[in-house]
């Protein structure tokens, strides 16, 4: 049975390829249909090849406005959540205080709770406070739910840090500020970066919490959802494809950089 033997030998590769296909197929469909020229308002059936949408990505009213708003909120939410989350993570790992256990489990709540519950209770809170729904309420909500992810990522890193490194820095004439900037922060950086990336992705594509607390403001996920009721412009696929490509490019660049760094090290050995 040569075929069975062949299958046995290459089973891992086949399974890997199938998994990759499963992950990539939706992205491929989105990309392919960004070159479609649909007949009606819905972009669900292949008609003919066209680059119309790529040439005019902002051609649909409100699309690029919502995209820019989503990017702004994501950037600010990432900054806010990363700054606060890093400080919380350090406090939880390095200091012993009375409410430490309580804070530790409270931080996990936004990760564990269903989004709808958080969204509804946040809305109730904002309405009772008489807050104007819009950019600021969205931003506050996003910082809140991103926080727990940042704390988790940074905490893991800080816990694995040897406190003797900071003592060594102090022993070598670095004051508290210098020690933090030169030793603590660079060593914690990978954890902080992972937390920030997670926060950005989560904030950028959040729909449920945003939808509850946005008022009349429209973010990109809300725009996509809204337009799906009435018809799906090809431009949505264009934006989706572009975002996918940016992400892939980002990963590839960092891989190339780290590869080159490793090779330099290897050659200097």
């Amino acid at each position: 049975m040569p075929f069975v033997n062949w299958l046995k030998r290459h089973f891992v590769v086949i399974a890997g390829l199938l998994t990759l296909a499963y992950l990539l197929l939706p992205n491929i469909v989105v990309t392919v249909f960004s070159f479609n020229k649909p007949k009606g308002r819905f972009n669900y059936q292949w008609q003919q090849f066209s680059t119309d949408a790529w040439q005019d990505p902002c051609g649909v009213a409100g699309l690029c406005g919502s995209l820019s708003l989503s990017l702004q909120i994501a950037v600010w939410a990432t900054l806010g959540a990363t700054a606060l989350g890093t400080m919380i993570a350090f406090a939880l790992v390095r200091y012993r205080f009375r409410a430490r256990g309580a804070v530790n489990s409270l931080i996990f709540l936004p990760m564990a709770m269903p989004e709808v519950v958080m969204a509804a209770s946040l809305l109730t809170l904002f309405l009772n406070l008489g807050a104007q729904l819009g950019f600021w309420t969205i931003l506050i909500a996003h910082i809140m739910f991103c926080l727990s992810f940042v704390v988790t990522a940074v905490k893991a890193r800080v816990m694995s840090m040897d406190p003797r490194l900071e003592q060594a820095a102090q022993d070598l004439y670095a004051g508290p500020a210098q020690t933090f900037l030169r030793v603590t922060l660079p060593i914690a950086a990978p954890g902080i970066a992972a937390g920030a990336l997670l926060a950005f992705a989560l904030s950028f594509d959040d729909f449920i919490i945003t939808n509850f607390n946005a008022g009349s403001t429209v973010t990109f996920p809300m725009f996509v959802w809204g337009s799906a009721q009435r018809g799906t412009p090809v431009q949505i696929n264009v934006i989706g494809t572009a975002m996918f490509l940016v992400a892939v490019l980002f990963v590839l660049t960092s891989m190339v950089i780290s590869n080159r760094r490793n090779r330099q090290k290897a050659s200097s050995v």
Partner: protein
Amino acid sequence: MKTTNSGSGDVRLTGISKTYGSFTAVQPLDLTVPQGSFFALLGASGCGKTTTLRMIAGLEEPSSGTVHLGDQDVTALPPYKRPVNTVFQSYALFPHLDIFENVAFGLRRRGIKSVKKQVEEMLELVQLGEQARKKPHQLSGGQQQRVAVARALINKPGVLLLDEPLGALDLKLRRQMQLELKRIQTEVGITFVHVTHDQEEAMTMADTVAVMNAGRVEQLGSPTDLYENPKTTFVANFLGTSNLIEAEVDTKNGDDIVLKAGGGKLVLPESRCSAPTTTGGKVLVGIRPEKISLTHADDAGEIPEGRNRITGRIANSSFIGVSTQYVIDSTVCPEFEVYAQNVDRDARLAPGAEVVLHWSPAHTFGLDAAQDIDAGIQEEAAL
């Protein structure tokens, strides 16, 4: 700004102690380390030696007492303002910086701009000139250890503190690094304070050793002095091996004390006895295993007069090349250890043989019998 060493670099600890809650890590302690010396704090884990070191570095705040470096009282100074540098246990090299930047760290923090020449010289001193652009994790344990030494030494500290710096290395490398550190110390002439649990390491490297036990300094002196004249049972057992015999003071004969042990008599120079010697009082008589000669009972008549002697039977012997180690059963001491050089081996000296142990009274030492006779034995066996 820290001032670098310029002359009076003694480390002076006065009444320094450290307590954590109800636990006392270091009992009030006075210690002076003369400038330029290689000083070792020796003791089992938990004896307070590392805490003492960290109080000199400023990483631990003393519960009482003062730390002086030269004439300067540094007790209240934070570590980054003390002219002291530390080589940490497991080195604590900065993983995100390469070897060059690790070594340059202290200079840069003090605002020195042109560090290249100094760093390169320092890396030459520790023979790591080729490795400057590597990251710490790319180096072997021994190389990392040398980077840690270079990183501390480049600041020309008044005192270099070493916290079990060789603990993570294997035996062969440890021997090599002991010589290396000793060479560097002689070359730069800085005061080294070295913390270790390894008595051999302390004795090979240090000019002066302070043996610590349970937060106290048991005895302080040169390695030979500690080995030849231990003042407590802990020191006698922790540094090498000692045979301790319970004896009773009988008479005094000039500068010597005559003691009764079992049925026989032993002679001990009074100057080598750290215990009170009133007639009838108890004393522990100590003798190192290599100072003892072993003669078969049949030849007992050939032993010169004036030597201390004990009879016994060989219980066990193990041949280890240069020497043979015997365990002797005798009435005065259950497990008497004797190390004999393998010069002329007497074939009759096998387990079961009746023997006479004899040694010069000048090699005998006397300890206070009020102490635990086994102090310091367990600690060493546990390592």
